[in-house]
């Protein structure tokens, strides 16, 4: 029986935590980890210093919790109010683990019950990239295209909005992003010819506030008077229609399934748009605006402020959805408010986030498809010999379709000023074929066979000096590094490998300090938080899958080198190193 005093205690603690969370408005003082990216600037930096480069080798598992599912666990275990919230891959259940109880037994498990048919239109494994906590609610997307708001304490559903239509091949896998009372969500389905959009829902009621499409008329793309793109190529009337063959913009891709960041001072959100559909470039002549680029929009109205297209008339499925890490750094002696964007096309862009001007763009991986970015015009120069053509196999396209780095988010440490990039080192042979559009079926238009890039190591974890635009150190990994990165004030950087190792390296030198073999390959996002006992904890979701791990999670047959849209041949040896099966691992010092 609860005595009145304990009830009082509980009441006070919830009020305090709610206040604390509300006040931070998403930014926090390193205590909790309410959003997958940790903060609005997407730095994935933890200011906790209990764990540092000297004592990290004594890290121990404090508890684990199995999700009982066998697909790719790409989510980030977010922590708020001393509760850890995990969104599982399909069927997208929301698990709430109370951290104060030893062993963190399940407080509640919210079943979102998405339609099982949605598994048939999920291009790259039935993953989910995590939930977001805000103002006592947890928001997450389901594979069949619904955004759900759940009460953080009780697990009761508050509202649920159906935004995407799986019959047209549309799914939702991204982690929602909350800013100024609006839940921002986008769709996936670039490989199904889905027309991309970003939608803002009111945090309280779930009503749609605004929606910005990635193709179509200026009205659909919310381009208005104050749209001031830095480069001339992006200025024009209804470019979302005129840079496409007739009607192609309706199935032109540009889906929004990656990371959103928010600058409260400029009141701007920054996000990337996906690849144009289909992959076969000959079927969509023109720059295919506004795909494979970065939008800066006013968070209240959604009106576009500036846009920069990394890959106009993208040739290689280089989505532009990777994270935009906001940072204020000195460039050429002057402090600049910039965003760092390691793009799928293998270049790391440093862009002035107020104007959209590309300050620098340097390759962070071996690139032979684009030999230089012409800074005055911002346009990449595609190498003609590497252009995919119908009827001919073009060999050794580096980086491959999943790019220099796919969705796996990098981390930025304001102390070392390095960007820690988990990515892959892969090339591919590709033959473009004319794609036949049938709504709800794949609309790719390319036969692809991937293989390891230079040096034979399929993955790299590298530290990048953003200001000077050059790589500091690189760790070669056997498999693509498909997990996110975390860096802490204790100068320790965490990442996981696809054969199950959770590694901690010295943020300054890249020396391996500690590693732990989890039950399955790691494709999740590491987080760090201060537990109820005041100690610093680090958590990671293990469970191989995702596009790169589909060979294991989908039981694919590697005899077909093009299985898994090209990965089959390149990842044929993964099944010997890891089996499928997801669980969260939480570590702390003894």
């Amino acid at each position, binding site marked *: 029986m609860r005595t009145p005093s304990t009830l009082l205690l509980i009441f006070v603690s919830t009020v305090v935590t709610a206040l604390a969370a509300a006040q931070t408005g998403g930014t926090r003082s390193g205590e909790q980890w309410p959003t997958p990216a940790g903060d609005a600037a997407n730095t994935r930096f933890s200011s906790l210093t209990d764990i540092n480069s000297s004592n990290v080798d004594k890290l121990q598992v404090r508890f684990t919790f199995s999700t009982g599912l066998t697909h790719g666990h790409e989510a980030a275990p977010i922590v708020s109010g001393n509760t850890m919230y995990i969104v599982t891959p399909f069927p997208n259940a929301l698990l709430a683990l109370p951290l104060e109880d030893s062993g963190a037994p399940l407080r509640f498990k919210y079943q979102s019950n998405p339609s*099982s048919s949605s598994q048939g239109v999920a291009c790259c494994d039935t993953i989910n990239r995590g939930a977001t906590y805000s103002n006592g609610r947890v928001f997450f997307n389901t594979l069949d295209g619904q955004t759900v708001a759940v009460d953080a304490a009780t697990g009761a559903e508050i509202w649920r909005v159906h935004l995407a239509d799986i019959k047209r091949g549309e799914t939702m896998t991204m982690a929602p992003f909350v800013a100024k009372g609006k839940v921002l969500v986008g769709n996936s389905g670039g490989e199904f010819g889905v027309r991309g959009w970003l939608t803002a829902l009111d945090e309280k009621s779930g009503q749609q506030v605004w929606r910005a499409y990635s193709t179509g008329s200026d009205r659909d793309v919310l381009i208005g008077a104050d749209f001031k793109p830095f480069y001339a190529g992006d200025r024009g009337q209804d470019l979302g229609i005129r840079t496409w063959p007739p009607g192609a913009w309706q199935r032109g891709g540009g889906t929004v399934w990656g990371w959103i960041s928010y600058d409260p001072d400029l009141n701007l959100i920054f996000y990337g748009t996906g690849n144009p559909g289909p992959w076969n470039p000959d079927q969509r002549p023109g720059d295919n605006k506004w795909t494979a680029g970065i939008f800066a929009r006013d968070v209240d109205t959604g009106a576009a402020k500036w846009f920069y297209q990394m890959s106009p008339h993208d040739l290689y499925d280089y989505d532009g959805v990777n994270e935009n890490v906001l940072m204020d750094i000195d460039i050429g002696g002057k402090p600049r408010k910039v965003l760092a964007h390691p793009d799928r096309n293998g270049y790391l862009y440093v862009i002035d986030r107020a104007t959209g001007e590309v300050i620098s763009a340097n390759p962070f991986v071996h690139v032979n498809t684009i030999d230089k970015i012409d800074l005055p015009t911002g346009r990449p120069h595609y190498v003609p010999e590497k252009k995919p053509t119908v009827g001919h196999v073009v060999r050794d396209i580096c980086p491959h379709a999943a790019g220099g780095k796919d969705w796996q988010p990098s981390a930025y440490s304001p102390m070392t000023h390095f960007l820690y990039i988990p990515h892959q080192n892969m090339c591919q042979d590709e033959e473009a074929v004319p794609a036949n559009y049938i709504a709800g079926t794949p*609309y790719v238009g390319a036969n692809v066979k991937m293989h390891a890039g230079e040096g034979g190591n399929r993955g790299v974890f590298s530290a990048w000096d953003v200001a000077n635009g050059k790589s500091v150190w690189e760790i070669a990994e056997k498999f693509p590094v498909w997990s996110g990165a975390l860096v802490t004030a204790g100068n320790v950087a965490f990442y996981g490998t696809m054969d199950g190792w959770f590694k901690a390296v010295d943020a300054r030198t890249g020396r391996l300090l500690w590693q732990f073999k989890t039950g399955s390959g790691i494709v999740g996002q590491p987080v760090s938080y201060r537990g109820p006992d005041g100690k610093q904890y680090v958590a990671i979701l293990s469970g191989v899958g995702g596009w790169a791990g589909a060979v294991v999670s989908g039981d694919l*047959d590697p*005899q077909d080198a*093009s299985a898994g849209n090209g990965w089959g041949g390149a990842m044929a040896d993964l099944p010997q190193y890891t089996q499928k099966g997801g669980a969260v691992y939480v570590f702390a010092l003894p």
Partner: protein
Amino acid sequence: MSSRFLELAVVALIALTLLGCERESRRFSDSPATPRGVQTIRQSELQPGSSIPTSGPPSPYDDNAYAVSQGKQLFEWFNCKGCHADGGGSIGPALMDEKWIYGSAPANIYATIVEGRPNGMPSFRDKIPPQQVWQLVAYVRSLSGQLRKDVEPSRADHLFTRKSESSSPKSAPVSSSAPRDTQ
């Protein structure tokens, strides 16, 4: 030469003739078994009480190389290749291995294509006429080497991703119990 040997030779020749004719016949105005015939097949091996062997309509094109090559072209045109790749699987399960989730009999495959399956296989009922569905059924069976080697297609004029259907070994179908994760 003993007359018996002569008879044997003649019988072998006739068999060869039939095989040859069937493999090469081009049947343009064909209307194979209607869907109703397909409902007689069961998907589960278990039958309460007595177990009555059931065999739905046989695949009309198992011995016809032209229909199997048409099936291979439709496999690409109707975007089956988008989910099943060249048999290795991608969004959908692999079709070239020995594991069959919803039955390996031709009528099972016909039902899977027409009715669709809960974990993401779309239903193509009324979208693909029966003749073409049977051509797809024959091609899907050739992906794991179920057909005769001289009927199965050879390489395509595309990126060479796997040994051709005609040169990959025949695998004994196994009913696999690994449907997708439910709860």
